């Protein structure tokens, strides 16, 4: 922020009169001088002084002391001065609410000024002053301005309603502004219409169920008329609003489409993308045999391609959207492969996105061209890009069978380059090719084995080990190769360890005579010397299998593997539908539903595509999700990257980037069984293993055997499914207000208050750090003691700037549940150590158990019944929740927000019985039965759990959630 003073040195006595001179005030007595100047009689001097004040404000100096003097300058007919004063007011009114009242009179007066520009300016600025007392005075002027004769004032007033709503929603409703706003949709001026639509859309978003934006054919018609006449930005507001409308039938849908298509030729890319959104959505309703449907499809391609000649940032947004469109309707761009070829000078983010789309568009017709390009890319400089290109070659092999052979030979060429990361990436994809085309390309194994030593990345090592284990009978020295890996077993990553264990067991089953020693060695390494529960559990399962029934072991371990799907990272269909409704927005850039990155209630409602109309609805419904030639929807596990995103900094172990999909039914079966029957014991393992398709997921029958021997560990591994499931869910869990955890007295001036929250599956510790000492604090760090559920910081404490005296900072610390576990007293106690440059401080706090209730905690009904019966009655605990005035539906909705799921509801003699389930991060299930007697504010809650000590805390969560 020093530039202001530097600047004055550099420029000296510049002859040019420019604004930068306002930054050159002397430090000493500055405020005092300004005060004098502000009260000067001369207009010019006043104006200069206000400019100086604004300059100081920009560089972050506190000039709030001048508030009364600046406000005094407000009463002027000089528009320029007025604007400057308003700018100041917007910044400081909040910190000086009492003095801000002084400005009200002038505002009210300005709202009646004969000059429409001043009226608009006043109403615009007033809305930006977020002081409760001012808002009361705002109502009357606003009401007048909404009906002003000048359209410029009306369009400004329309936005002001949204501002006021953001400050005080109730006030807006009480004053009837919403109705006035609705009336403005019929305004004669297109810009007023556009702003009214924008304001209404925003307000409607925070009231998902209100019928605020009551779109009917008449209003739609008005909007479409305004669409032709308003500014580019207005067109965007209107198109985005139109996209939320559900046409009544295909005819209406077609007529809207016809009126929206001209927008595809607009120079503004955002107008084009919003138009594409409307068309993509409404097209869904048109019968496919309609001529117009085909015409529309054809019209969509050229504008999408044109977006790629925009500036790179926009290209990136366009490509992320095209990625969605290609998944939804591959036919639109199937002939446009060439435009996605990477240019040498494209920024890396554009290159990576283009590559993604190239693979999606690859088909038998264009595969030769694509392969030639990919091979070219594999020699580029950027490591990420090269890796992705190599991976893409592998995906082409899997997608287009005719090209597999060429792909494999291309990959072998690349392996010959000996560039380390290219080789590793190639081996990872060759493993997938082997799985897709068994017994076809095994001749290359020898070449792969030559590169064994150069592999240093876990994924490549794991892939190579898988190959060796899978083809052990054809590799003469398979035992030697695997043995060589075994030496450093404990230094390997979990992924490699698991793979090595499985590979050696496979080897043993294939060549039992020579390898008995080896298998014993690995089993003992895995079960006795390892503290990783995943590894241990898998080791025990194999051990038990091998010792009890080797034939069964063979059937399980060497079972035929399910085929892997062609498209490995398709976005899951329901999410795709939702994202299509968000074309052009951030959600479509992140490929995540808005609820995953927007706080609060805004944008959390899920949008959906309208269903196709017409008689053949049932017959056609299967076409809706059509994305490939296969009839059944492809079974896909979306890659973690897509769903969760690196953006949220989630540390998800273990990284399995190409997760081969498993048949859905089988997968579900395995999960249910684990969830219900095995509880916590195997929860972690399922998360860790699907990538290689080893024995576990395939053989549910083998599970019960394992139950007996596996040690009773409380899980503790950050369960993949927990985190993965959380993102798409609504986040409505209750967050307690912050309480002081560490008083300043005890910590040499550092005060910490905080609370816990679970947002979209992510556990966060929200902290407020206040420096009440005299010196600056820096170098913050945080650590937790072992605790009952393995809570641990998932990242460092992000205090970016030093905390100066009297400064307060809010930090959100993401937590994981993969830390060390130790039972605490009370169970939810957390001991925390915070360090700064002064000292280390300790405190303890208690978190609500709902923090670790996971999003996929809804149990199957049958499983629930079985589990309920299975848990001994001694483990049941009964509680009374008093003074709740909610009906059963409201209560269950509220609880669902905190991941307490209602599985079934029964009504017996006026008494509602809710059956509910909760799953903790460590896999423990808690079952509950809640009895609600109509008219009786006291609920009876029975909780059953295998670990009865949690019941008390679950009850507390119920109480907390229901009472808030």
């Amino acid at each position, binding site marked *: 922020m020093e530039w202001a003073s530097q600047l004055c040195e550099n420029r000296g006595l510049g002859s040019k009169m420019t604004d930068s001179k306002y930054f050159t005030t002397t430090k000493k007595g500055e405020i005092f001088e300004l005060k004098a100047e502000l009260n000067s009689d001369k207009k010019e001097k006043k104006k200069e002084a206000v*400019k100086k004040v*604004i300059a100081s404000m920009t560089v972050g100096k506190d000039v709030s002391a001048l508030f009364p003097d600046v406000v005094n300058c407000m009463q002027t007919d*000089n528009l320029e001065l007025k604007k400057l004063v308003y700018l100041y007011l917007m910044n400081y009114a909040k910190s000086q609410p009492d003095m801000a009242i002084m400005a009200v009179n002038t505002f009210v007066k300005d709202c009646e000024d004969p000059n429409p*520009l001043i009226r608009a300016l006043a109403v615009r600025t007033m809305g930006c002053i977020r002081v409760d007392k001012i808002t009361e005075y705002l109502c009357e002027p606003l009401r007048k301005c909404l009906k002003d004769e000048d359209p410029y004032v009306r369009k400004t007033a329309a936005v002001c309603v949204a501002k006021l709503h953001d400050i005080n929603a109730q006030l807006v409703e009480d004053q009837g502004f919403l109705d006035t706003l609705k009336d403005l949709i019929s305004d004669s001026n297109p810009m007023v219409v556009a702003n009214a639509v924008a304001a209404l859309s925003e307000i409607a978003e925070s009231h998902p169920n209100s019928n605020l934006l009551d779109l009917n054919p008449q209003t739609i018609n008005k909007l479409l008329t305004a669409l032709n006449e308003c*500014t580019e930005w207005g067109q965007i507001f209107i198109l985005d609003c139109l996209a939320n409308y559900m046409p009544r039938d295909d005819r209406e849908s077609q007529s809207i489409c016809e009126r929206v298509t001209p927008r595809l030729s607009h*120079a*503004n890319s955002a107008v084009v993308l919003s138009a594409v959104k409307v068309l993509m959505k409404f097209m869904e309703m048109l019968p496919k045999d309609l001529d117009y449907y085909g015409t529309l499809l054809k019209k969509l391609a050229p*504008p999408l391609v044109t977006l790629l000649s925009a500036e790179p940032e926009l290209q990136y947004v366009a490509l992320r959207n095209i990625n969605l469109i290609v998944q939804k309707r591959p036919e639109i761009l199937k002939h446009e492969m060439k435009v996605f070829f990477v240019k040498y000078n494209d920024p890396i983010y554009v290159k990576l996105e283009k590559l993604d789309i190239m693979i999606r568009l690859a088909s038998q017709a264009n595969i030769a061209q694509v392969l030639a390009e990919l091979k070219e890319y594999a020699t580029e400089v950027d490591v990420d890009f090269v890796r992705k290109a190599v991976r893409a070659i592998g995906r082409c092999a899997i997608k287009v069978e005719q090209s597999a052979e060429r792909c494999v030979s291309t990959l072998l060429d690349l392996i010959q380059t000996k560039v380390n990361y290219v080789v590793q990436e190639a081996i990872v994809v060759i493993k997938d090719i082997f799985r897709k085309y068994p017994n076809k390309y095994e001749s290359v194994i020898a070449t792969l084995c030559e590169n064994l030593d150069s592999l240093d990345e876990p994924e490549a090592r794991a892939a190579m080990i898988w190959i060796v284990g899978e083809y052990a009978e054809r590799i003469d020295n398979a035992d030697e190769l695997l043995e060589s890996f075994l030496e450093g077993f404990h230094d390997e990553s979990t992924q490699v360890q698991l793979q090595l264990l499985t590979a050696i067991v496979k080897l043993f089953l294939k060549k039992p005579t020579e390898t008995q020693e080896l298998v014993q060695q690995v089993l003992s390494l895995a079960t006795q010397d390892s503290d990783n529960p995943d590894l241990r559990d898998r080791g025990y399962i194999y051990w038990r299998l091998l010792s009890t029934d080797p034939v069964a072991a063979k059937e399980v371990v060497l079972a035929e593997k399910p085929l892997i799907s062609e498209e490995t990272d398709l976005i899951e269909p329901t999410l795709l539908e939702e994202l299509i409704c968000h074309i052009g927005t951030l959600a479509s850039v992140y490929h995540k539903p808005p609820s995953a990155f927007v706080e609060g209630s805004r*944008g959390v409602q899920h949008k959906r595509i309208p269903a196709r109309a017409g008689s053949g609805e049932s017959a056609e419904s299967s076409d809706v999700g059509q994305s490939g030639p296969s009839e059944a929807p492809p079974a896909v596990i979306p890659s973690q990257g897509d769903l969760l995103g690196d953006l949220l900094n989630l540390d998800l172990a273990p990284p399995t980037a190409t997760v081969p999909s498993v048949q859905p039914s089988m997968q579900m079966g395995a999960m249910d069984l684990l969830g219900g029957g095995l509880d916590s014991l195997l929860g972690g393992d399922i998360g860790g293993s699907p990538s290689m398709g080893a024995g576990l997921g395939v053989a549910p029958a083998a599970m019960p055997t394992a139950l007996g021997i596996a040690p009773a560990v409380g899980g503790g591994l950050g369960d993949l499914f927990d985190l993965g499931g959380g993102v798409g869910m609504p986040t409505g869990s209750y967050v307690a207000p912050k309480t002081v955890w560490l008083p300043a007295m005890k910590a040499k001036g550092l005060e910490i208050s905080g609370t816990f929250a679970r947002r979209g599956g992510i556990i966060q510790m929200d902290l407020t750090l206040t420096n009440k000492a005299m010196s600056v604090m820096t170098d913050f760090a945080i650590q937790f003691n072992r605790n009952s559920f393995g809570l641990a910081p998932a990242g460092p404490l992000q205090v970016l700037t030093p905390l100066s005296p009297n400064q307060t900072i809010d930090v*959100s610390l993401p937590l994981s549940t993969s830390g060390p576990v130790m039972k605490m007293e009370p169970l939810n106690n957390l001991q925390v150590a915070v360090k700064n440059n002064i000292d280390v401080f300790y405190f303890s706090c208690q978190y609500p158990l709902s923090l670790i209730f996971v999003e996929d905690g809804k149990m199957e009904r049958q499983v629930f019944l079985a589990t309920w019966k299975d848990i001994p009655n001694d483990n049941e605990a009964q509680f009374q929740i008093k003074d709740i005035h909610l009906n059963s539906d409201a209560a269950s909705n509220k609880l669902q927000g905190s991941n307490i799921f209602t599985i079934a509801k029964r009504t017996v003699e006026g008494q509602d019985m809710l059956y509910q389930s909760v799953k903790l991060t460590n896999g423990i299930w808690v079952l509950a039965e809640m009895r609600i007697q109509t008219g009786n504010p006291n609920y009876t809650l029975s909780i059953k759990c295998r670990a009865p000590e949690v019941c008390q805390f679950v009850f507390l969560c119920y109480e907390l959630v229901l009472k808030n």
Partner: protein
Amino acid sequence: MIGGLFIYNHKGEVLISRVYRDDIGRNAVDAFRVNVIHARQQVRSPVTNIARTSFFHVKRSNIWLAAVTKQNVNAAMVFEFLYKMCDVMTAYFGKISEENIKNNFVLIYELLDEILDFGYPQNSETGALKTFITQQGIKSQHHTKEEQSQITSQVTGQIGWRREGIKYRRNELFLDVLESVNLLMSPQGQVLSAHVSGRVVMKSYLSGMPECKFGMNDKIVIDKQGKGGTTDDSGKSELGGSGKQSIAIDDCTFHQCVRLSKFDSERSISFIPPDGEYELMRYRTTKDIILPFRVIPLVREVGRTKLEVKVVIKSNFKPSLLAQKIEVRIPTPLNTSGVQVICMKGKAKYKASENAIVWKIKRMAGMKESQISAEIELLPTNDKKKWARPPISMNFEVPFAPSGLKVRYLKVFEPKLNYSDHDVIKWVRYIGRSGIYETRC
């Protein structure tokens, strides 16, 4: 919507910070600096999510513009807005530089207040803004009442880009057809991809509120007319050059003054133009492109320490036309120790800092051929990684439109004032430039 807008210098110091929404705190300013401007690696995305806050950024020379939001905003709109913001600033004070921004900070705040209300972009046409933004000369407080209402009706009106009552003694307009031709060619001379992205830029100095109609040799229009029987054969002699009469336009976009629904239904381009310079349309073609130059590379590795490069360029247009500013850029490996170049025409130089041989030719007529050969000495390295062989790129300027686009007419009607289409002086010019024009070697 947009929650705030920050402008930083290259060091990450804030020059301008305007917050529109309550959910954006002062710490957002720092978060962007720390995570993006000061980040060690290259920028991997123009959109960054830091602690549930999304940052959109664009860079102009060494100035960072960042828009911030916590909501699910229209991302395309935010970027379009940032570009527009740059345009408006450039129109007011020229180049976007640290000094200019500091010198005009009050103006920028005033602009930001006007073109973004509560994070919603409002009218951002410079022409309209200049009528009432108070900084820099134009003082609106002296406007009469009629003038005031005229301003507001223009800002909110249907023709926000033009004000009434413009008068010129000489009604004149200039039409520039500017094309950039892009090519990616394989070493064997196979066209991997080629397209022309063109712009029609117009400078109009016309009185009143003229109604204009623009016509070009668009295949769809010509075919339609052909069917109708009223073929306009007079265009034939004018076209000459390429010999083709109409071109297939893949897609086009228009300035907001063009009536899109009319284009959609009749494919006619009609509009009331802004005053002064603006871009009327952009278009893209991929079929029957005249590639003005062909590059034939030959790279031979002689042992491990020497490369022989021979590049031939052939011009492919009418001999009477002259191409200008020709530049061929031949990349050399990083371990180059010395280069000897021989060329028949122009000047060639090895530029070590750019890792390339740059061959420049001032002028070259059509249907000619020229050649360069170079010997590149290499230092022996034990670097395992192969040289990536970047493509050979080319720059040039030619006086015709490589897409084959021709302007057929631009008619002007102004019913209220007494001047007719014939009185307007019209100038048309075609310039074809190289976009990304690359041949792999």
